């Protein structure tokens, strides 16, 4: 499983990208993965402190907390998008 972080989630976690070879125990969807990542503490706890500000994608499609994930997936976390035009 590849996990990507964008914008201030990258700053807070200190990571642009990481590989998590296997699904952590008890993690079957996006919400559970967030719980697990926040449980690392430090910058990760901070990044996921306000979940209303975090959006997710699974395999490059927008996802919800209950979207299922599998070991081979590409998961991304980022703030709401802010486009480029006024």
């Amino acid at each position: 499983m590849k996990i990507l972080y964008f914008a201030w989630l990258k700053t807070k976690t200190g990571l642009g990208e990481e590989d998590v070879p296997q699904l952590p125990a008890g993690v079957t969807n996006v919400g559970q993965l967030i719980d697990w990542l926040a449980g690392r503490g430090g910058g990760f706890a901070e990044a996921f402190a306000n979940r209303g500000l975090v959006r997710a994608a699974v395999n490059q499609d927008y996802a919800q907390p209950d979207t299922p994930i599998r070991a081979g997936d590409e998961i991304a976390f980022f703030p709401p998008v802010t486009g480029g035009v006024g």
Partner: protein
Amino acid sequence: MSVSVQREDFDVGLEYARFVAGRTDVGGVALFVGQVRAESGQVAAMTLEHYPGMTERQIDAIAAEARARWALDACRVIHRYGRLVPGDRIVLVMTAASHRQAALESCHFLIDWLKTKAPFWKYEESETGARWVEAKETDDQAAQRWRR
């Protein structure tokens, strides 16, 4: 339908010329060019971060929806990323149709949806510091009015 996500600038005249070359079925072409705006000297520069792969995928999906909703002859989107300063071009949306309403409405639809669906994040540098820009409620509203 053609989508480009690129660091480089684009040439509006050249893009338009290529878009209509040899076509006699087009009655109207609508274009929108988004540019970096200096708000009373506040924004010195901005950096657009994006999610390579997902960006193209989402813009393709939005363009496909526009083509399903309006009778379009052609559609082109270019979106830049990277560091940009006031006056720089950011995005080009171009639609061609037999009838002007289809070209104009689909262009408007595309730019409203790009703003809320395409994974770009804006980091603004100003005299007082730098910050990640937060999403605006009004952009969601602008996009919502196209829902049916």
